């Protein structure tokens, strides 16, 4: 038997290669030219991300369904393409936010940006593969970078606690994931999702305990990464403890990557798991939304509130997963659209938290935002837009995204799940609007004179760029969503 060399489509690999090379370049540059100037490193990181985005975009037109490299280890189809772009955008904005965050001044910047880029490459590998081992490897590249990033401020106790907690629980969840993959390998004889699917098609395994348990363990492992209830316990503490810029990154990119992998697994092999698996996802979706929203109401810290809000949003995305599992093509498009909108609005909200800090001191209590509508009108207006969008109210992207997912779920026949979801969005309105109440309906706290700060606001140019991007995208995706909806729908077709 002669060895067969795997087919490799280099042009489709370029985005990942760019990101990895960029990460190495940033690291080396920082090592050899120990400068205190973050501007160049930030610019290098941003250029890398933009180049990777450009490579993805240029590879997309004329893509013949998809291209399989390394025997399924790397798959570039429209789905991966959309998720790549989404991840790159999220990383781009995260880098802007990071550059804006004052407290990072004391910490070395080079490693920080390099870690973000490495994490980005891990996320891209998770989204662009149909091999379960590759999903795991991508996840580990991502997670190791995140563990370090969470504890990046070495002398911050809360940050250290967050990093350790994240590390311990994350490793535990990774164990579940790997164990689940091993079980499926044992039952279906492969780690390649396409091969597993074809095996399942001829040998139904929906009653095989190893297969079902394996699928369950994978659900646990990925459920942890996306912070779905009941695997959400780590999220609030880690979100609160980590530096805000890292929290922003963590709440969007990794979630997108883990969900992309989750979708691929569920779409390719979940259909063979039978009704019980759907029921599990259904309950998980309903619980995630409800717990996330109900607990968010009681939070006094904005980072914790946004943590629970992101748990709730994972729940809405799970609704799309349930519908997609039924074979509803609209659902995958809805999922992609939702993730895109979610990235912009959530990153935007975190960016406001970072930008509203004064003199290196963060202001993370919700009470700190009192009267901000009059002391810092631009930031407050941006925050109001993000809150309205997170609550899913028109005319913002959040509304169209919810509309998209809910219509897919109704089309697939899950009217009651959608009823749970819309009632949840009513609950969520309460705490999102509370921020508007605090910003606009309460007077500024003592020591802040309304008239005195009415002059031009001081916002760092990085934060301003990030905010501008996020605000425009949030509104654009709400008012003129036609083209992106079309793009998302076309990207919802996976390569089998």
């Amino acid at each position, binding site marked *: 038997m002669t060895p067969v060399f795997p087919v490799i489509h280099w042009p489709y690999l370029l985005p990942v290669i760019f990101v990895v090379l960029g990460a190495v370049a940033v690291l080396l540059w920082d090592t050899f030219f120990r400068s205190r100037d973050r501007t160049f490193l930030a610019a290098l990181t941003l250029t890398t991300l933009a180049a990777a985005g450009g490579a993805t975009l240029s590879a997309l037109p004329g893509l013949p369904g998809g291209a399989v490299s390394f025997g399924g280890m790397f798959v570039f189809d429209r789905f991966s393409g959309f998720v790549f772009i989404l991840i790159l955008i999220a990383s781009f904005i995260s880098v802007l936010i990071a550059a804006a965050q004052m407290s990072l001044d004391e910490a070395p910047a080079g490693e920080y940006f390099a870690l973000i880029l490495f994490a980005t490459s891990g996320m891209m590998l998770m989204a662009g593969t149909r091999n379960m081992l590759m999903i795991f490897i991508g996840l580990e590249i991502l997670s190791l970078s995140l563990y370090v990033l969470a504890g990046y401020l070495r002398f911050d106790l809360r940050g250290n606690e967050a990093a350790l907690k994240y590390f311990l629980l994350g490793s535990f969840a990774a164990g579940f994931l790997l164990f689940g993959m091993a079980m499926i390998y044992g039952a279906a004889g492969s780690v390649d999702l396409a091969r597993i699917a074809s095996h399942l098609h001829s040998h139904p395994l929906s009653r095989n305990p190893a297969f079902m348990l394996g699928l369950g363990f994978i659900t646990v492992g990925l459920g942890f990464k996306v912070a779905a209830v009941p695997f959400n316990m780590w999220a609030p503490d880690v979100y609160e403890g980590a530096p805000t810029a890292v929290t922003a990154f963590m709440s969007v990119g990794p979630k997108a990557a883990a969900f992309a992998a989750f979708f691929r697994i569920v779409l390719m092999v979940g259909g063979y798991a039978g009704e019980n698996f759907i029921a599990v996802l259904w309950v998980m979706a309903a619980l995630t939304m409800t717990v996330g929203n109900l607990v968010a109401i009681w939070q006094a810290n904005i980072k914790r509130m946004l943590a629970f809000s992101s748990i709730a949003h994972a729940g809405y995305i799970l609704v799309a997963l349930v519908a997609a599992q039924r074979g509803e093509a609209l659902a995958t498009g809805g999922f992609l659209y939702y993730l895109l909108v979610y990235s912009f609005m959530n990153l935007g909200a975190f960016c406001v938290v970072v930008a509203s800090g004064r003199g290196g001191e963060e202001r993370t209590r919700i009470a700190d935002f009192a009267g901000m509508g009059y002391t810092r009108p631009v930031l407050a207006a941006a925050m109001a837009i993000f809150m309205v969008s997170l609550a899913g109210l028109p*005319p913002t992207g959040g509304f169209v995204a919810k509309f998209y997912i809910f219509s897919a779920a109704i089309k697939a026949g899950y009217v009651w799940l959608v*009823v749970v979801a819309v009632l949840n969005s009513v609950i969520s309105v309460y705490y999102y609007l509370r921020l508007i109440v605090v910003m606009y309906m309460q007077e500024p706290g003592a020591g802040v004179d309304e008239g005195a700060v009415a002059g031009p606001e001081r916002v760092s140019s990085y934060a301003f760029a990030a905010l501008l991007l996020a605000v425009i995208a949030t509104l654009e995706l709400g008012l003129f969503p036609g083209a992106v909806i079309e793009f998302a729908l076309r990207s919802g077709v996976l390569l089998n």
Partner: protein
Amino acid sequence: MSELPLITLMVFLPLIGGLLLIFVGDADEAGRARVRAISMAFALLTLAVSAAVYAGFRENFAGMQFVERAEWIPRFGISYYVGLDGISLPLILLTTILTPIVLLYSWGEVEKRVRLFQMALLFLETGMLGVFVSLDFFLFYVFWEGMLIPMYLIIGVWGGPRRIYAAVKFFLYTMAGSVLMLVAILWLYFETGAETFDILVHLDKPVHYALQGWLFAAFALSFAIKVPIFPFHTWLPDAHVEAPTAGSVILAGVMLKMGTYGLMRLAMPLFPTAARDFAPLFMTLAVIGIVYGALVAMVQDDIKKLVAYSSVSHLGFVVLGLFSFNLLGASGGVLQMVNHGISTGALFLIVGMIYSRRHTRLISDFGGIARVMPVFAVFFVITSFSSIGLPGLNGFVGEFTILAGAFDRSPFFAVVAASGVVLAAVYMLWMLQRVLFGGDPSPANLGLRDLGVREWCVLAPLIALMFGLGLYPKPILNKIEPSAKAWVEQVNRRVLHVKPPPEPRLARAPAPVFVEARSLKAVRP
């Protein structure tokens, strides 16, 4: 049809004006004056455009006029589709007339955060007009929900002491109703297989009977909260009492009508059979609302609360008229919506005027005011009479037509509802007697100024409308009637065909392509 896109112009002029205000500072008095001038200019421009629409409106034509359509999200069959008919036209005029009036009123009342206030009012106008002209579910929903945010701000920022509680309650109540409507809209979309959010298409083809009950319930709940129909009215007194005067006027004058408009435009004709099934329930709730609202109004010691509860009572009439399913009830209902907007709007303005002088709204703090403020007293009396439904003023025409329509349908409900008219006379006249007359004015009230020029200008147009609509309602009735007639036919359709057999649904995801080929081979003989 005219060349200019009049409706789009009308709907978005206030929005443009509001956005323009972002660039105008309001730090000093000159800036505030500029802000006020700009917003007033845009409100008046909108009024002028709506007047052009009124002038160009074709009578004896039941369908949609001034229709404009453009693709928006073609993949989902969503389009920007607007138009108006005899049912929406009066409400549009009501909106465009009331907005400059409250803007003018707020000149002397709102001194804090003037720019934000004017922006909120202008955005609100766009939202309200948008709801009345939308012919696409998606567009309708966007305006319907989008409108909540400016109103929320108006109550929450400029309201009374319990403003935040009231604002949040208002928002959550309305939102809870409308999200279920969203589910119903989506369900309708997929169930009919029409793949369009075009309201008119769905109106033409009512969905099968088995589903109508659920969908009607979801739509009707959303609108019932907005109207509000008893027992969903509990948000209303809070919102009205805490809102600043301008907010109360818009809330009572226009926003409550969105509920009845929604019932009329969507819930009832979309699901006619279910609507008729539910009619006894709604008529019962309507008369409960009429009597209950009137009784509760009677015992209020706060004038504003009294007016708020009178709204519950008055809107009960509208609902009663609609669920009579006949022409009298329908056209009376539309007319009553407008009348209530005018008279209750004017009442809230009057309460605001007296509150700004005395900083109290308690009836017991007043008495004998007529002697100190004679002009004010005249306006107050006329407006109250209009609200009671005195012949010769606008309230009479609407209520009388509704009662006639309801009598035709069910004499019992008509009789009970008529008692509401009597009760209205009781609580309004009693209140008038205690506030305006009833002995000498107390020393605190002796120094009250009578109405100023601005207040004159605020009230005079409304008083003129009360007389105009009361004495000669024909022009507006002529415009309402053809559409109302068509509406009555629509809601009296019989749709009883049952659910089509469900398509078999795939239990598992589609198999991978290369496997499918193999399995196809296996099936082949």
